[in-house]
C-alpha cells in the first residue's frame, strides 16, 4: 500500500492531519487550476479551499477505483461548474493583481527579459479572458491537466466535438493575441524572450 493510500485511509478514519498532508501534496495544482479559471486571487483561494472542504466531506465515498487526484479533479470540476452558475466571471486580467505574482523566470533573468515575459503572460491571460468560462475550462483541462477529449466530454457532460471546438477556438484566440497567425513582431519578440523556442 502506497503512502498516499495510507494517508487516504487515515483521513477516511477521521484523522484530519492525514487529510492536511494529502492537501499539501495537491493544493498547488488545484489552486493553479482555480486561478487560471477565475483569474482572481481571492476567488481562486476560496474556490480551491471549497474543493478541499468538499473533498473532505466526501472522502468516505472514495473507493480507490481511480487515482486520488482523478477523484479530486472531478470534485474540482463540479465546484467550478457550480461556481460558474452562482457567479459568471466578468473576466478580465488584472494587471495590478498580476504584480502580486512572481514570474518564475523573472528572478533569474534581466529586467528586459522579465518585462518581455510579463508582456507575453499578459497576452496569454488576455486571450483566455476573451473565451467563455467553459471554453477556458476545457482548454485548461486539455492543455494543463492533459486529459483526453473523451475524459473532458464525460466530465463536463458534452460531446467530444464540443470539446474539440472549444480547444480550437481558445488556441485561435491565443494565436491572434500572440500574433503567431501572421509571424508578426509579437511572435518574434516571444522567441527573443526565450518563451518560444
Amino acid at each position, binding site marked *: 500500500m502506497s503512502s498516499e493510500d495510507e494517508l487516504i485511509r487515515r483521513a477516511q478514519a477521521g484523522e484530519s492531519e492525514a487529510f*492536511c498532508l494529502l492537501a499539501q501534496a495537491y493544493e498547488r495544482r488545484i489552486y493553479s487550476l482555480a486561478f487560471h479559471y477565475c483569474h482572481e486571487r481571492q476567488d481562486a483561494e476560496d474556490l480551491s479551499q471549497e474543493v478541499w472542504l468538499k473533498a473532505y466531506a466526501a472522502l468516505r465515498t472514495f473507493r480507490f477505483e481511480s487515482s486520488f487526484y482523478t477523484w479530486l479533479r472531478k470534485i474540482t470540476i463540479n465546484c467550478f461548474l457550480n461556481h460558474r452558475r452562482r457567479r459568471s466571471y466578468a473576466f478580465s486580467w488584472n494587471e495590478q493583481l498580476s504584480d502580486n505574482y512572481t514570474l518564475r523566470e523573472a528572478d533569474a533573468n534581466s529586467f528586459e527579459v522579465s518585462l518581455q515575459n510579463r508582456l507575453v503572460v499578459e497576452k496569454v491571460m488576455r486571450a483566455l479572458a476573451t473565451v467563455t468560462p467553459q471554453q477556458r475550462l476545457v482548454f485548461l483541462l486539455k492543455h494543463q491537466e492533459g486529459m483526453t477529449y473523451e475524459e473532458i466530454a464525460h466530465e463536463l457532460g458534452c460531446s467530444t466535438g464540443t470539446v474539440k471546438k472549444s480547444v480550437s477556438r481558445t488556441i485561435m484566440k491565443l494565436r491572434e493575441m500572440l500574433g503567431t497567425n501572421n509571424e508578426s513582431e509579437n511572435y518574434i519578440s516571444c522567441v527573443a524572450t526565450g518563451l518560444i523556442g
Partner: protein
Amino acid sequence: MHNCKWTRDVLLDFALGETSPEQTDKLLAELNDCASCHTEYATLKNTLRVSQEALHSVLPAEEFWPGYHSRLQQKLAQHLQDNNRDASFEQSLPLAFSSRIWNGLRSMATISVRVPLPVGLALLLLAGFAFVYFRSPAQIQVAAAPASVETRIVQVPLIQEKVVTQVVYVERKGRRQKDVLGSPYRPDPNAAVASAASGAFAKTAMSLSDFKPTDKVKLTIIKGSYQDEK
C-alpha cells in the same frame, strides 16, 4: 499526393496528442513533404508551449504557500468544529416522541437507494403500465358511474285484488210458510209491510253498507307496458 487541408484539419489533434498511431505516421510524412504545413505545425506547437509556460509562470511565489496551507487548515478545523458542535447539540437535546417520529419520517423521505439502471427502468415501465391500466376507459367508466346517477320516475301499473268474503244470512219465511201450508211461497204483502216497518226485513236485504275489508290484500304487479301481460 499531399493534402494540405487534411493535414491542417488534424494538425491541432496531432499537437495535442490526440491522433492514432496510423494518423501520426501519415501526418509526419505529410509534414516532411510540405514546408507550409510544417511551419503551421511549428507555430501551433510554439503557441501551446508559450501558453503553457505562461500559465505555469503566473503561479504565486513560494512564500504564498505556507500561508495558504495554514488558512486551509484553519478552514478545515472550523468546518470540523461546526460539524461537531451541530452533532453534539443534536445529541444533547432530549428528543420528544413527536420529533423522533418526524426525524424518522424525514430520514425515510430523504433516503436514497442505489438501484441498477435496468432495474430502475423496469420499475419505471411497470409503474407506467400500472398507471395506464388503472386509467383505462373501462375503469374510468366504472369509477365515473356514481357521479352520473339519473333519477327517473317510472309508473308501474298495480292491480289490486280484494277477496271479500261475507256470509249473508237470509231468513227464508216463505219456506216455513210453504212447509206449513203445503203450497209454494207467496209472500204476504201485509206481513212484509209490517216487518219492514219494524226493521226486521232490513236484515234480509243484501247490503254492503256495513262491509269491512279484510286485512289480506293480494297485490299483483304486472311489469311491462300492457296491463294484461303477466
